């Protein structure tokens, strides 16, 4: 009788990355293979490290905004929002109501951008030659057009400021946004028809990379990845920051916590985002300016902003998970300590646990389902 271990082969060490088509940037995994099975996998990162935190400690609070755009370059708007929240906490800056609405709209549009792109990338990693990715990017471009109209830039928006947003949206923008949001469910239907029910996808993604609930909580996993494992934790609900308590939306939860759940939870989250957007775009009014006077003063003269000594931790539910900004002020225009709690960095903690005993091909889709952006991982 031949036991599975009777035929033993030499282990093969493969360095997947940093130049590899599917590592989402300059990420590297040192994998040890037994045949095609992973027996050990160590993530290696830092190829894009630029010490953003130290740059932030030498710049004014406002001057860090354009750098946050480049953290998770898919979600510039929500990165801006995270930093703005932390600064508002630190300096006690009130936010105008219209500004809050615009922030929610931008943050949810960003969630659409991110989830559309990441589901496209995930299917691409499974081998669908570009088609889902290009469909996703087609729709993403339409949202980026809106971002460009509002902020002047498609990806590096640098738009949200403490107290509101830098400029009000141009006339007609809200109507165009409404039109886009109206059309989005139809795109999601098409996108799901393309591959959600596909037997090959199910074979590939179900029961692969299962993340148990307990491990997910203990390993500080956040975002869609946590919710795919069935933990009901959404900072929009828990903290109720900005105007989120005003809107009716639900938090989709997975049951198994495998790659398929992580894929599908993102699709369902997009549908919920569309609901939030519909409500926000209906309720928004121009009764207040888009930025509070104190915030406007900050935009015009960043160096006059000297928050009192103290510290603040502002966190939001970014598309990838909990994005936190930890600021310590010593009373000068520059933060004394500026730390970013990057969701995709911490979500990588469990990568090895997810990949063990799976095949090489699974590693790629597991990594894709974790949803990392190296700008944020390496900072």
């Amino acid at each position: 009788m031949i036991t599975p271990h009777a035929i033993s082969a030499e282990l093969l060490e493969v360095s997947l990355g940093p130049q590899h088509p599917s590592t989402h940037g300059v990420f590297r995994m040192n994998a040890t293979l037994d045949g095609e099975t992973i027996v050990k996998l160590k993530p290696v990162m830092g190829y894009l490290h630029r010490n953003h935190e130290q740059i932030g400690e030498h710049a004014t609070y406002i001057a860090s905004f354009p750098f946050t755009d480049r953290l998770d370059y898919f979600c510039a708007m929500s990165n801006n929002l995270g930093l703005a929240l932390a600064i508002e906490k630190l300096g006690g800056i009130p936010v105008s109501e219209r500004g809050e609405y615009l922030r929610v709209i931008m943050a949810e549009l960003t969630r659409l951008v991110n989830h559309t792109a990441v589901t496209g990338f995930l299917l691409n990693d499974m081998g669908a030659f570009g088609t889902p990715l290009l469909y996703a990017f087609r729709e993403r471009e339409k949202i980026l057009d809106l971002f460009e109209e509002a902020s002047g830039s498609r990806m590096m928006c640098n738009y949200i400021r403490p107290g509101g947003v830098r400029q009000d949206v141009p006339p007609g923008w809200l109507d165009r946004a409404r039109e886009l949001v109206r059309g989005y469910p139809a795109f999601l239907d098409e996108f799901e028809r393309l591959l959600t029910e596909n037997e090959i996808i199910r074979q590939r993604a179900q029961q692969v990379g299962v993340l148990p609930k307990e491990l997910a909580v203990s390993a500080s996993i956040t975002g869609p990845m946590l919710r795919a494992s069935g933990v009901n934790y959404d900072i929009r609900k828990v903290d109720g920051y900005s105007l989120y308590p005003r809107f009716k939306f639900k938090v989709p939860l997975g049951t198994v916590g495998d790659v398929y759940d992580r894929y599908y939870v993102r699709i369902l989250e997009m549908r919920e985002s569309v609901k939030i957007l519909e409500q926000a775009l209906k309720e928004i009014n121009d009764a207040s300016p888009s930025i509070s006077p104190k915030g406007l003063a900050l935009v015009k003269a960043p160096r006059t902003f000297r928050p009192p000594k103290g510290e603040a931790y502002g966190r939001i539910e970014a598309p990838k998970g909990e994005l936190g900004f930890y600021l310590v002020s010593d009373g000068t225009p520059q933060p004394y300590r500026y730390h970013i709690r990057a969701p995709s960095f911490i979500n990588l903690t469990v990568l090895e646990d997810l990949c063990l005993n799976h095949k090489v091909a699974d590693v790629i889709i597991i990594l894709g389902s974790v949803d990392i952006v190296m700008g944020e991982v390496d900072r």
Partner: protein
Amino acid sequence: MIGVGVLKGMGVTLKTFLETYPWGRGLLRTLRMPPTNGLVTVQYPDVKQQHSERFRYFPFLVYDRTPDDLRCVACKICEQECPPQCIHIVGPAKDAQGRPLKAHGRTYPVAFDIDMSICMSCRICVDVCPFDAIEMDNQYELSASDRWDPMVYDKEKLLKPAEYFQQIKPTEAAEVDARLAAKAKKAAPAAPQPPAPPAAPPPAA
């Protein structure tokens, strides 16, 4: 049922495929299929994407009538606030005794360089400028064959007339003009400044 998912997906790609041809579109319309996107690529060098008015790429300096009548007074606020530190200003211009030289009633920078390869087009310089002297351009085809000299834009290359600003960003320019007019009205009682001193830099060729 096994295979249905695969067939559904193939239906989506086939529909997209047909949608890109006129005859295919006609066929789909006769079959009462809702329209989808068709071809969405912009054939870049031949066709250029329409950018919105706020589209921002790389700053320029505004002058009003002649290139030596630039609005910049060399206060260096933008240099200080620029997040990637890509602006370098020398000035304001001074004469031999160290008194500030003035052109059209304002001090002016001796040199104003922006390193294009460092600039990240964040628009913070525009936000902080108290004189509305620097604005964002929308020209993005700025590639050069050398990382050093061609990428450092000096004052001559940065200066553009106010009419140009009004042309590329009419809404924003109108706001700026209104603001400047209000300011000028307030400052009107002050004595008119002497004309440009001889040491003024030669206007751009």
